[in-house]
């Protein structure tokens, strides 16, 4: 037991170190979503209102993508303690990441007990699962940025753990309902995943749940209570706040746009065309395509997707995990009982929400895959360990030694790539440069009466609000908060698409532009160039 506790604490420390070390500096810069969450949390802390002047919002309008405000509320204590910094904004995500690693041990133990009653074996396997999640590139990536998906994932882990505990003691169902209820109000994916997953759990454990009929009524009511914000918006004709992000990213709107570009045979053979490529079959085929893309080994182990979702030259899982994952999956497939059902329910439902959207495969929207994959890897390791157990001592030593070297090497390489190379190679994708731009403006404040920031820099106003820690009261009272998605103004700053025919004779103005616009704009002189770490131009400041 002592050994288990020591290992447990050691893994937890490792998880905490990997999630908290250089939290404010790696990744190099907050991206627009992080900056928006941070400033809205700061604004709620100071005024009770978000940047748009909504009092204690449940959903943040942000840039029109209507994200749940739960993360912003979680960030308030950290911002209160550490002021509005990148570290403070990312801290809740990191802490929830550590909590996920913590919870995974107990979850794995409960899940594995559905398969095998050997407590000792399950405990060590659970430690292995916990370790795998602690060093998982996929989980570290999103535990170190202020993304709601990381919080939702942790809540789902705890939700399932409490559900499984509830099978033994129904009082835990209440905790499960709260965790799952919160997850629905934290991120978009759980809104589809959680109801389907709970329905699946109800079917798998129907016999047991029927004996607990009375005890599950209250948790059900609690869970339904968490749906009230969503219901409220729909009843008040504000359903777009819940579905806004969905409409922005779903494949159906994508298909609608492309329908106009259908080839000529669409009109020459309309019946056959709509039978094979009409909206419905096309959508279903695209959903299947998106769904299967999340089982792509290339995506999982080699490339990942968006550069913001992984470290350089790294997939979402370690390459060495691939054979173990395969063996683990096969061993689960061949096993019997409820463990197999719960595992595959989880694994097969995880990509469902993301498969309805247009950018597939998507590592953020499918974070909920974890830690099912780690469980499969751990079981694969167990299987292979049992195989080599019967070999000679020498071959055992050689295999174990080689395996440890490979695992250690992979981890060190990932660690180096993430903490030492990522800022250098990916500063571009992390919207680097706004802090330097602001610092230049502050140093030369007396020189310019007006600073025009081009909107081609992707929501630059939020970065200036964030880095300036601009007083939310002044922003809301004097400037009316954020009024438009394309035009904002405060202090000496104006954020807008720049009309060069009007601005041409403005000697007291400073222009902050992206490199392309600076080449085509009639500028007097470039006064400062901010560069990405790869030496290419990031932001141009010019007169």
């Amino acid at each position, binding site marked *: 037991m002592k050994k288990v506790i020591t290992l447990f604490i050691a893994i937890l420390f490792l998880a905490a170190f990997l999630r908290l070390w250089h939290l404010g500096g790696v990744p190099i810069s907050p991206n627009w979503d992080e900056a928006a969450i941070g400033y809205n949390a700061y604004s709620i802390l100071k005024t009770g209102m978000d940047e748009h002047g909504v009092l204690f919002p449940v959903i943040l309008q942000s840039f029109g993508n209507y994200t749940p405000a739960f993360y912003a509320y979680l960030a308030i204590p950290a911002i209160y303690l550490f002021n509005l910094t990148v570290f403070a904004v990312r801290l809740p995500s990191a802490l929830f990441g550590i909590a996920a690693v913590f919870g995974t041990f107990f979850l794995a133990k409960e899940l594995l007990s559905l398969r095998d009653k050997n407590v000792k074996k399950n405990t060590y396997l659970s430690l292995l699962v916990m370790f795998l999640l602690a060093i998982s590139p996929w989980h570290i990536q999103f535990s170190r940025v202020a993304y709601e998906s990381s919080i939702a994932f942790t809540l789902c882990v705890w939700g399932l753990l409490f559900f499984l505990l509830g099978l033994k003691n129904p009082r835990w169902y209440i905790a499960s309902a709260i965790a799952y209820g919160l997850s629905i109000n934290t991120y978009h994916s759980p809104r589809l995943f959680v109801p389907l997953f709970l329905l699946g759990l109800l079917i798998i454990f129907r016999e047991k749940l029927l004996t607990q009929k009375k005890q599950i009524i209250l948790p059900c009511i609690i869970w339904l209570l968490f749906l009230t914000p969503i219901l409220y918006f729909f009843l008040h004709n504000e359903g777009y706040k819940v579905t806004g992000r969905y409409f922005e990213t779903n494949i159906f709107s994508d298909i609608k746009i492309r329908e106009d570009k259908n*080839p000529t*045979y669409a009109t020459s*053979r309309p019946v*056959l065309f709509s039978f*094979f*490529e009409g909206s419905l*079959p096309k959508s279903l*085929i695209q959903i*299947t*395509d*998106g769904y*299967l*893309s999340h*089982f*792509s*080994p*290339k995506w999982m*182990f*080699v*490339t990942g997707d968006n550069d913001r979702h992984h470290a350089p*030259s790294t997939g979402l899982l370690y*390459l060495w995990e691939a054979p173990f994952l395969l063996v683990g999956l*096969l061993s689960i*497939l*061949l096993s019997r009982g409820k463990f197999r059902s719960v595992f595959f329910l989880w694994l097969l439902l995880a990509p469902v929400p993301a498969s309805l959207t247009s950018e597939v495969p998507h590592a953020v929207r499918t974070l909920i895959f974890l830690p099912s994959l780690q469980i499969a890897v751990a079981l694969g390791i167990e299987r292979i360990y049992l195989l080599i157990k019967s070999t000679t001592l020498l071959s055992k030593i050689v295999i174990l030694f080689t395996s440890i070297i490979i695992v250690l*090497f992979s981890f*060190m*390489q990932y660690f*180096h*790539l993430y903490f*030492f*190379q990522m800022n*250098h190679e990916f500063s571009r994708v992390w919207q680097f440069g706004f802090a330097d731009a602001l610092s230049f403006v502050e140093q030369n404040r007396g020189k310019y009466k007006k600073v025009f920031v081009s909107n081609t820099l992707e929501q630059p106003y939020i970065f200036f609000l964030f880095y300036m820690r601009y007083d939310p009261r002044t922003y809301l009272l004097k400037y009316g908060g954020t009024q438009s998605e394309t035009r904002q103004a405060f202090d000496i700053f104006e954020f807008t698409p720049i009309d060069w025919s009007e601005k041409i004779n403005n000697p007291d103005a400073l222009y902050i532009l992206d490199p392309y616009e600076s080449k085509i704009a009639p500028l007097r002189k470039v006064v400062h160039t901010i560069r990405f770490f790869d030496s290419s131009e990031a932001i141009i400041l010019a007169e």
Partner: protein
Amino acid sequence: MKLFFTARDWYTMKPSTIRIVILFLVLIFSLWIRTYNLALTPPVLLEKEERVGLIAYSLLRSDFISYQNLFSQNISSIDNSFLGPLTILTTIPFIKTFGLSTWSVRFPSALAGFLTIIMFLFFAKTVTEKIQKTQSDKQSLQKTVMFSLTSLSLIFFALSPWHIQISRIDTGINLGLFFLLLGASLALKAVNNPKLLFFWTIPFVLSVYSDFIFFLPSIAVILIALIFYHKAFSLRFPKTVISLLIFLLLVLPILQRGITYSTKIDDGVTALLIRNENQAASRIAYSNNTPISKLLHSNQIENLKLHIKQFTSYIEPQQLFVHFTGDKDIISPYSGLFFPLDLIFLVAGLYFLLIQNNKKSLVFFLSWVIIILLPPSFMSSKTNALRSVLILPPIIALLAFGCIELFHNLKTQKRYIVFVGISLFFSYFFLRFLFFYFSSYSSTPRDYHKEYLQAFSYTAKHISKTKRIIVTDISFGKDLYLKWLFTFPPSKSDFGYIKKPSDPTIISQYNNYSFISKPPSHYYREVVYIQPSQTIPKKAKILFYSSSAQKEDQIAVFIVRK
């Protein structure tokens, strides 16, 4: 009703006449689907097909002694380096009968594809027998199930969108696959039949002669057979050695070309390897050249990742089963290489092989797939549906096995519903594939060749044969001269003469035609030019424009004024 009854009890009934009739109908249909509209779908010949056609045409018009050139680097100034001699020989009778046309080049391919289906039946039967012999009595497959398995494998193979599309374009691959399956079947048979031991390697030689793609896979399959059945082969050691010597002896004339082809890395991979080297150097420099950074960021590791990435590109589930986007020139993007339902059968096949503890078959299937996919993962930067089609036989066998076992494990009452459901689902996707394959190909970018062909027709009719014509091919690759030669083949055996081009931009020169890769820097009054309309000079006097509605796609024939 009779048909439905047969279908319902497909896997338990004894081989009956009606089922043989069904198989026969499937074979007829598969031949039809492989030959229907052959000249027009796909609309443009591959460069390789053009070369095969032209060389066959050239040999047909020369004396018999010229046939020795099949083993040389080029025939009649057409590059012959990596064309299988057997493919060219197979094409000759069709060109002799039907003339040099798209149809006559493709028909042997369709025919070889059709024969491969029949050979696959033989292969599947042999494999099934082997599976039966390696299992315990309790688990062994019944004869009727075996018949159903081989028949179903044949149906899956015959209606496979991947095989249908490949059968219509490349004789070498289809011929090679036919011989590879024959070789694999003979290898399995030879284990119990010593008479076959002398000959079992010959089909592998023929597959290499059909296409150099088969060089490594053939050797690999021979090795796998020797490893799997080492006991049987070692019992007849002298015969085995003789068969291997026969293989070596027959492969010898093309050994050099086989090795060169198998180790040739494409430009894309070379560029990626260079990028990895630069990236590694940059990372090491950024980490102040520390020994640990040199170890962690070695370009060898990145190269390995690159090859793994290439390998995994071939097993992308969405590409395989829903929407293949790898080779738009030859594979319809409206379908996967398999149908979506095949994924379920494939998983079921793996599952049932595992629960039946049939590790030998599983290892056989997996090693086949890995061995086929490894070489292109190292040599090619893009997924190549032609090269990887060799994985089709084991996968089809596995998914047919999965399908049979799924039915076997269903309750009798449910089989009706599942059968109807599967048939409807399968039919929908098959018809969808056919609809788009035969109707949407005209939208492929290589169709741009049509515009050039109109220009060539114009010059053939209206321009004197003594006048020099310069063709600028800046649109699609370096095969335009092949297209021209294919469309207007000279009557002589030799296709003209190659001048050593003084201008490095000249790709080829045939009689009065010169093909260049970018517009000329100087224009001469006595020369006729063919080039994309966007690139014509101001002083041009247009003689002809091709008919494309898009101005930027039009090809112009012009001369220049004083």
